[in-house]
């Protein structure tokens, strides 16, 4: 399935240019006195046209946006006393990433370690949330009684800011590390529960009628109909959850300390190393973007 959908995508991208080339190839025998020249000229025209097209539509806008962003930043930095500009930040980043994995004791570790530690917390908290949230979502979607039972609790807890759970975590676990994971767990479970439940509830009645006419067992209904039908919704939930988890980890680590990108930001604030704070913002953004793109790629496999 994945191959097919990807193929379709490629086709869309490639077909216009191929069509252009084909036209010129067909023209060769039709051309009158200088067929080779005309066709060659056409080929060049078509080729450069499609290339220009992609440049104007796909490459130019984001390039322009990013340039304006950096220019605006440089401008602001010039006006401000404390805000470092792009150039200073860049040199600082080059230095920082020349040795990302050094280790000078618990409060001074390379930026690589900080990122990996944060990712580990997100991974554990999010993984546990998925293990509990997805089956919970299936139950809510499948059994109306259970839905009625759980809905009010979810409605009550969902709007609570994730960090409000931190004191409870610290109280119960008596340690920063599991408390941070607990916060990730609580904040990332809701999108998965809700999206999975919605997915189950939205399964077309036709599919359920097939299940009823074939008289399938509950297990077959789950593996052959429920699970594949809900998969796209579930993946949306997973994507949202990872996004939330990555948002929350920075704030949680600022409060709990330890090794992690959030703590690192706070630490550099205490050192008044503003370049590093800006670098951290970029790192957080880029890692978040990579997580999102990665999950989108997985989600694409489950589109029918």
């Amino acid at each position, binding site marked *: 399935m994945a191959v097919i959908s990807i193929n379709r995508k490629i086709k869309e991208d490639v077909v216009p240019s191929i069509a252009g080339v084909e036209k010129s190839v067909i023209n060769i025998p039709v051309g009158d006195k200088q067929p080779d020249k005309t066709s060659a000229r056409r080929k060049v025209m078509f080729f450069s046209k499609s290339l220009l097209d992609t440049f104007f539509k796909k490459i130019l806008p984001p390039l322009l946006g990013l340039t304006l962003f950096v220019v605006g930043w440089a401008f602001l930095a010039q006006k401000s006393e404390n805000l470092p500009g792009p150039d200073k930040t860049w040199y600082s980043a080059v230095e920082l990433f020349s040795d990302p994995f050094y280790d000078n004791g618990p409060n001074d570790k390379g930026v690589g370690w900080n990122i990996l530690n944060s990712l580990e917390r997100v991974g554990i908290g999010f993984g546990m949330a998925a293990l509990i949230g997805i089956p919970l979502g299936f139950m809510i979607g499948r059994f109306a009684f259970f839905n009625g039972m759980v809905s009010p609790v979810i409605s009550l807890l969902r709007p609570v800011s994730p960090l409000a759970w931190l004191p409870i975590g610290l109280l119960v676990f008596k340690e920063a590390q599991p408390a941070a994971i607990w916060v990730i767990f609580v904040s990332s479970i809701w999108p998965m529960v809700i999206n999975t439940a919605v997915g189950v509830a939205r399964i077309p009645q036709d599919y359920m*009628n097939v299940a009823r*006419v074939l*008289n399938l067992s509950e297990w*077959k209904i789950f593996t052959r*109909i429920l699970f*594949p039908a809900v998969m796209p919704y579930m993946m949306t939930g997973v994507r949202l959850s990872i996004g939330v988890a990555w948002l929350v980890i920075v704030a949680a680590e600022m409060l709990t300390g330890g090794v992690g990108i959030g703590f690192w930001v706070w630490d550099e604030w205490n050192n008044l190393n503003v370049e590093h704070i800006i670098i951290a913002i970029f790192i957080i953004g880029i890692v978040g973007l990579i997580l999102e793109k990665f999950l989108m790629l997985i989600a694409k496999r489950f589109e029918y």
Partner: protein
Amino acid sequence: MNKYVQVEGVKVVFETKSGDFVAIQDIDLSIQQGEFVSIIGHSGCGKSTLLNLVAGLIEPAEGALFCAGREVSGPGPERAVVFQNHSLLPWLTCFSNVYLAVERVFSKNEDKASLKKRTYDALDLVGLSHAAQKFPHEISGGMKQRVGIARALSMQPKVLLLDEPFGALDALTRANLQDELLRIVAASGTTSIMVTHDVDEAVLLSDRIVMMTNGPGATIGEILHVNLPRPRNRLALVENSEYMHLRGDVLKFLYERHAKKAA
């Protein structure tokens, strides 16, 4: 008369926001084994409701239904349904879609090889052996509907229920599939009930045509016997006066006596 499928004094009521809605009532119908019966009527007359009743997908408020001497209590593979919009599972290949049905019905007594053979035979019957490993979105609407028919027939049902099976197809594809259904049903001798709104389709395929009055509270208006000899041929029937006569009868019922006001 051998009453294979029996519908006795059935009434169906749907609960709606503005109170109870009587969809169909006072339905009495018996169908013989091997018979092909069409149900025709204007949209909203409850013809699909009647079919879903026999399928067991909905329950009557009054009356009872029997199939092969047993009361219908819920859906089951012995009353296979070909759905209007094919209802193939998009994440399964054509083979797997049919196999799911075959496995459900025959896996108790047969091994995998024989289940696979049944699946291929069913696909072969509708002329789709070559598309077995294709996914539903890779084949045409007509082919999807053939897979739907293959899935239904692969279960060797006592009754084949067809809910406007060709309604969503273009006229040429529809004619092709009608001819094929004619051939398949003749070969297997399966008792069939088909809901349709196509007069030619009803006359061409049926032994009897059940004509429904308009809803709400629709019931059977008339039952028309189609005594055209089988095997039937679409082109030969065009010249057949009996065919034209029957066709006229159905049209008169639908557009004179039970004409529906334009919605």
